[in-house]
């Protein structure tokens, strides 16, 4: 019965392979987040400036990434960029690129929103003290925005982690791809492996994402008090 199929995890080094696949997902998510948040901050700041052209271009950028599903982004990065623009990095770095640009787009909107919701009086009292634009952002607006945007940022991080489940679509040996290999390799001995392997992956994602979203929820609750 299904119970015996749980033994599929004891076969060979299946468990460590799954963890290895998960690690691939996690580091791609982590690197993309770090780069994406940095780029997104810059873009977000630029979007609060009065320059119409910059704002328009960045808005287009954001909307493109809002419109196109991530799966499609991954394909574009993996297959179109190398051919059309002759950028050819290993698959995982292409994924990092696609994720980074996506995170940057989403985060730029979070940053813009947060900066704009710093009370106007804060900006003005900074100006009244003679701070210039750079100083105003550096010392007044960004630190306060950072606090406002933290919950949304953590939520974005959980989404990025979940989206790594699509990596197998572009030949990256992520946890799902490894899971499929295991299911296929043990097909005969454990016909129900499919249930246990996907079940384990489901749980693994939950274990990573749940603490993050719980943290974000706590912060949100604290804010609204």
């Amino acid at each position, binding site marked *: 019965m299904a119970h015996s199929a749980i033994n599929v995890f004891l076969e060979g080094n299946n468990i460590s392979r799954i963890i290895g696949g998960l690690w691939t997902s996690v580091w791609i998510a982590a690197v993309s987040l770090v780069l994406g948040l940095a780029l997104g901050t810059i873009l977000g700041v630029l979007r609060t400036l009065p320059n119409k052209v910059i704002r328009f271009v960045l808005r287009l950028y954001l909307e493109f990434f809002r419109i196109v599903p991530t799966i499609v982004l991954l394909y574009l990065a993996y297959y179109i960029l190398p051919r059309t623009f002759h950028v050819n990095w290993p698959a995982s770095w292409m994924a990092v690129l696609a994720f980074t640009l996506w995170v940057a787009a989403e985060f730029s909107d979070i940053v813009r929103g947060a900066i704009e919701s710093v009370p106007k009086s804060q900006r003005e009292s*900074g100006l009244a*003290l003679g*701070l210039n634009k750079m*100083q105003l952002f550096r*010392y007044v607006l960004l630190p306060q925005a950072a606090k406002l945007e933290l919950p949304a940022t953590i939520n974005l991080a959980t989404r990025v982690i979940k989206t790594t489940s699509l990596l197998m679509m572009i030949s990256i040996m992520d946890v799902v791809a490894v899971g499929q290999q295991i299911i296929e390799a043990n097909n005969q001995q454990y016909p129900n492996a499919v249930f246990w392997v996907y079940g384990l992956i489901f749980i693994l994602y939950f274990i990573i994402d749940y603490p993050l979203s719980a943290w974000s929820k706590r912060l949100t609750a604290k804010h609204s008090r």
Partner: protein
Amino acid sequence: MAEEILKVEHLNQFYGDWQALHDINFTLNRGEVLTLLGPSGSGKSTLLRCLNGLENYKSGTIYFEGKKVDPTEKNWQNIRQKIGMVFQSYDLFPNLTVMENILLAPRKVQKRSEVDVKQEATKLLKRVGLEKYVNAYPRELSGGQKQRIAIVRALAMHPEIMLFDEVTASLDPEMVRGILKIMSDLSEKDHMTMIIVTHEMSFAAKIADQVLFLEDGKILEDTPGKEFFTKPKTKRAQEFLDSMNF
């Protein structure tokens, strides 16, 4: 003796189609206190904000210390260092401690030495009775305390003139007194030039060297001394004064 520190000529300001300030003209001498009175929405805050370039006024000229102000953002950034301003909402930076709030502008804008400014800040904090709170964050302070720190923060820049926009309006009645006392002292002891918007009539009457009464963005009265409170020229001003005392 009467040196003109500030002179405003034909100042007009619009929000969209709505004219918030109509042809404002006045002068202010160094060391004097100008109080700006008028009903809500009459343009008092707008005028103050024009005076340190927080608003891009439509037309008119401002002379600061005898020099015509070139109204570019760059230029205002320099002038603002000589103009202190305190707002109704106590706008300390919530992410910085009291001391950091005070140090920020003198250090980063005026590039003064940390030791120097710290010393001065400590002195000023003592003066307003808050030396204990150097390392506190704004959230740990009451409204009145925050407002005192905001005044100290502005003073640490060595301004030539201070602008106060209803600084006691959001405070608990008991806190109001302390703040008003600090402002009186600034005028009497330091001979600070000040423009004050306030609804505390008895305080205004005590401290004013000159009164501007605004309504609908126009100056209805520009009266030297304290005469305004006893013999207002216009009927509107009389009504206003009446309404302020129940």
